[in-house]
C-alpha cells in the first residue's frame, strides 16, 4: 500500500499533484511519501511488538538524512556498511546505541570511527576482521561489541570447518561449530561477544515462521550463555520482500 494515487486522472503524492512538483523543481526527481514511509515502518515495528526488538534500517536502501531522521524519531536504528553510512546515521541523529555495522570489508579507519562513536555492535564477517577489530580496540583502549554470523544450514562437507582454526575460517560459522567459534572470539582482547547474526533467509513480514526459524538460534543462545557468553542481541537481516526479485537485502 502506498500514497501515490490518481485524483481526477492526475497522479498525486499524498495530496500533492506531481505536475506541480515537476513545474517547481524540474525533472527528473525522486519523490517519497511521508505517510507511506511512516506507515511501512510502523507496520513492521508492530509486527514484532510481542518481542523486544530494534529496527535497524538499512541505509544502503536509502540514506537521505531526512528519511533517517524520520525513522529515528519512530524509534528506529541504522544498519550501516561503511564509515560514510555511519556518518550519515549519526548526522541524522540516530543514537549510536541503535547502530549496527555490517559488511565484509571494514577498514581499520572505519572500525576506529565506529568504536569512537560507541555503536551498538559490529556484525563480524570473518576471523581476520575479528582480529583487526580486536587490535584497533586494544590500541584505543575500548571494548568492541560484536555479533558473529552463524550459518544454520551449511553442509560441513563443503564448508571449511571452524576446527581448522578460527584464524583461517570465514564466518558464517556452521552452527555445529558455533560454540567453539564463540569461545575463540571471546579469547581475543577487547572483544565482547554480545550477539548472534544470522540470515534466516525467509521473508519476514509474518512473525510466525520467523519465530520458528529462531528456534535453533535460541538453543545456541542458551548453550553459549551456559558457557558464560552473554548473548543479548540476535541480529536477523531481512531478505528482500519487494513483489519482484532483485538485488540487495
Amino acid at each position, binding site marked *: 500500500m502506498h500514497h501515490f494515487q490518481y485524483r481526477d486522472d*492526475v497522479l498525486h503524492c499524498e495530496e500533492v499533484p506531481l505536475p506541480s512538483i515537476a513545474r517547481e523543481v524540474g525533472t527528473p*526527481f525522486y519523490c517519497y511519501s511521508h505517510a507511506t514511509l511512516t506507515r511501512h515502518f510502523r507496520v513492521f515495528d508492530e509486527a514484532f511488538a510481542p518481542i523486544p526488538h530494534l529496527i535497524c534500517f538499512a541505509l544502503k536502501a536509502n540514506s537521505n538524512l531526512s528519511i533517517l531522521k524520520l525513522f529515528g524519531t519512530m524509534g528506529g536504528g541504522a544498519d550501516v556498511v561503511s564509515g560514510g553510512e555511519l556518518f550519515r546515521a549519526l548526522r541524522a541523529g540516530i543514537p549510536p546505541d541503535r547502530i549496527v555495522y555490517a559488511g565484509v570489508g571494514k577498514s581499520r579507519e572505519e572500525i576506529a570511527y565506529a568504536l569512537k562513536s560507541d555503536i551498538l555492535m559490529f556484525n563480524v564477517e570473518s576471523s581476520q576482521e575479528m582480529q583487526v577489530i580486536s587490535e584497533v580496540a586494544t590500541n584505543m583502549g575500548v571494548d568492541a561489541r560484536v555479533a558473529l554470523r552463524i550459518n544454520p544450514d551449511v553442509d560441513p562437507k563443503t564448508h571449511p570447518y571452524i576446527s581448522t582454526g578460527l584464524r583461517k575460517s570465514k564466518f558464517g560459522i556452521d552452527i555445529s561449530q558455533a560454540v567453539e567459534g564463540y569461545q575463540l572470539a571471546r579469547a581475543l582482547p577487547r572483544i565482547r561477544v554480545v550477539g548472534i547474526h544470522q540470515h534466516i533467509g525467509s521473508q519476514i513480514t509474518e512473525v510466525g515462521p520467523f519465530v520458528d526459524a529462531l528456534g535453533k538460534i535460541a538453543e545456541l543462545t542458551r548453550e553459549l550463555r551456559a558457557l558464560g557468553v552473554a548473548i543479548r542481541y540476535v541480529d536477523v537481516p531481512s531478505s528482500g520482500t519487494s513483489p519482484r526479485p532483485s538485488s*540487495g537485502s
Partner: protein
Amino acid sequence: MKDLECTIVLEPGRVIVGNAGILVTRVLYTKETPSKHFVVVDAGMNDLIRPSLYGSYHAILPVRRAEGAATLTADVVGPICESGDFLAKDRELPAVQPGDLLAVMSAGAYGFTMASNYNARPRLPEILGKGEQYLVIRRRETYEDLIRGEEIPEDL
C-alpha cells in the same frame, strides 16, 4: 525468544522504503525504428540503475492518464550513452508525447543511493510529499557540485 530476554535486531530496507518512493521523469522524444518504439526520457541509468544492473522491473505510469488512450509497446530509455541505459523494455505504455510526465514506481530503495554522476549528470533532487505540502530534502546538484574537490595542478 521471549524467555531469553534477547533483543531481536532487524535490518529492513526495501520492505519499508521501496514502494514509498517514485522517480518522476519527462518524455524528451519518441522514436520509431522498423522493429521498435523508443520513449526517450530525461532520467537515465545513472539516476536509477536497477533495471540495467539487475533487470529489475519497475512499473511505469503516466502522471496524467486518459481513459481509453491508445497504447504502444516501447523501450523506455535514458539519455546516457550506453546501450544498457533503459528503465523498461518492451513495456506497454499509453502513447506518450514529448513533455509528458512518467512515474517510475517502487523507486524508493536502491534508487538514489545507487545514483552516480556518470556522463557528468548532476544527481536528482529528493522530494518528500507530506499531506498537502512537499519538502525538498535534497536539492538538485549543480554543475559546480560536479567538480567539487577537483584541482588542476600548476605543474600539470
